[in-house]
């Protein structure tokens, strides 16, 4: 109940963020621009629209998660709004979870807006809307939940700017981690160990990427879906646990 109060308040606070609307505007612009692009493209425009649309939702979702997420905790500490909350009978981890849930609600609302935009474009352009599209969108949202947890973890112990840089780095490496494994095979033993350590600790975000499946009509079964869901949720939960431990030990100065 207390977590919900904090989440709702966080959501309300997020809605006041102008950056959010700017990002949302550009996301819709990009999704819409695929209509124009498809006019000047020869051949398979279905592919282009889906590719661009899903990529836009992913990219702008991540940008929202990062730029709204990093300020989530650090802003409360800097502005000292946290003082009156932590002195109430609320464990710190509940506060953190409340902030996280609030941001996830914000992201959900934004994703819905972007998805509606995409569906309208698909409808207008006569692109078939398959169940794979929805599976792909669900996993994009799962990825956002993981990225948000990363941003929250960083923001419990570093400044907003550093959290943004670190979280972006995790996002990019997370999408390259498949290549990372390949790449490590060419290295000497020590470097191989380092690269492998990165590979196994950072999230493998390519698991949440179904664009290839959608475009090439490859099946992604319910079992695969459940496994990926379990992976994402476990990873996010682990990050939040870590964030709670860091947050619990922290001095609010």
């Amino acid at each position, binding site marked *: *109940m*207390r977590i919900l*109060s*904090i989440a709702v*308040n966080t959501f*309300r*606070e997020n809605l*006041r963020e102008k950056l959010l609307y700017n990002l949302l505007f550009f996301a819709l612009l990009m999704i819409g621009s695929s209509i124009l692009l498809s006019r000047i493209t020869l051949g398979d425009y279905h592919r282009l629209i889906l590719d661009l649309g899903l990529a836009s939702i992913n990219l702008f979702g991540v940008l929202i998660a990062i730029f709204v997420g990093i300020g989530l905790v650090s802003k409360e500490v800097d*502005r*000292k*709004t*946290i*003082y*009156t*909350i*932590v*002195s*109430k*009978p*609320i*464990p710190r981890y509940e506060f953190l979870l409340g902030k996280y849930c609030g941001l996830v609600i914000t992201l959900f609302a934004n994703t819905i807006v972007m998805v509606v935009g995409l569906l309208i474009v698909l409808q207008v352009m006569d692109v078939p809307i398959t169940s794979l599209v929805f599976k792909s969108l669900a996993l994009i949202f799962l990825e956002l939940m993981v990225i948000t947890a990363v941003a929250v973890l960083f923001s419990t112990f570093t400044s907003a700017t550093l959290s943004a840089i670190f979280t972006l780095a995790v996002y990019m490496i997370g999408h390259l981690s498949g290549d990372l494994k390949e790449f490590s095979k060419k290295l000497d033993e020590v470097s191989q160990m380092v690269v492998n350590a990165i590979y196994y600790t950072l999230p493998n975000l390519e698991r949440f990427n179904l664009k290839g499946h959608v475009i090439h009509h490859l099946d992604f079964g319910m079992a695969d879906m459940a496994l990926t869901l379990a992976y994402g949720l476990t990873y996010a939960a682990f990050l939040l646990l870590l964030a709670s431990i860091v947050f619990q*030990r922290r*001095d*609010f*100065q």
Partner: protein
Amino acid sequence: MEHSDSILKTAGLRKTFKVGFWGRSVTALEGLDLDVRQGEVFGFLGPNGAGKTTTIKMLMGLIYPTSGQAWLFGRPIGDQESKARLGFLPESPYFYDYLTGLEFLQFYGHLFGLRGVALGKRIDELLELVGMSHARHLQLRKFSKGMLQRVGIAQALINDPELVVLDEPMSGLDPVGRKEIRDLILRLKESGKTIFFSSHILHDAELLCDRVAIILKGRQVACGRVSELIDEGVAHSVEVVIDGLGPEELARLRQMADRVIVQGSQVLVVLPSRQQVGSVLELIRGARATLVSLTPQKGSLEDLFIREVKNKQPELREAV
């Protein structure tokens, strides 16, 4: 550590901060021993940078002590159950400024699991108590400093706490605002609450507190009842006005007095304590001069404070 009437207690509470790149240690508080009892107004006094906020932040569970211990309601600090019996107003409080007065108090009520009609009634009472009923639908960012302070106190009282902790509740307010906060504190005391507040304004404390502790540069220099501290610590000065003294007596007076001001045939003499009164009276009798008036001056915490600073090592002096 169960103390039936000990509401807030610290033993050797100490905090050092690591500052700068090399993590140099700075001691903000050095071995604080406090014992605040049920139903009293306790003033925690000291100049800026003395360590008051650091202490309060430790008591509220915002930062962790480097060493030493503290208890609220006989339980170690950080305990969730004792936090439920606590109200806290931080120094120059910052709140979510996009909320209205009503939404703001609702948010804090929800954190205590208060809802619905009961919460609505509580909020009405509190807004009334702090004189903010008119600002119920006004956003906090349109509040003045005094209004924020008052709604901040309402926030601290939402759970009907037994102990109210206020960090510099009167700072930044005009005299009228300060008086309002003082009245509010007295009203809370009347309703049986224990109040612990910090201040660098000694005058406020003198009017309000049953007991005070004074800290300087992180070190406790005095603790006790206000009247006792003033009586023990500060000799009462006496002002005597005399008419018709000769130059010889005047010279002798100057040796006894703190200050001698000559005005025409009258002299105003400020004696450092009551002890000199006898010899001054003799002197007057001997010189056949007239005693115009004799006024004992009451000491103040301010005097005590300045004396304490003077007594301490020179390093402490720069604190004031």
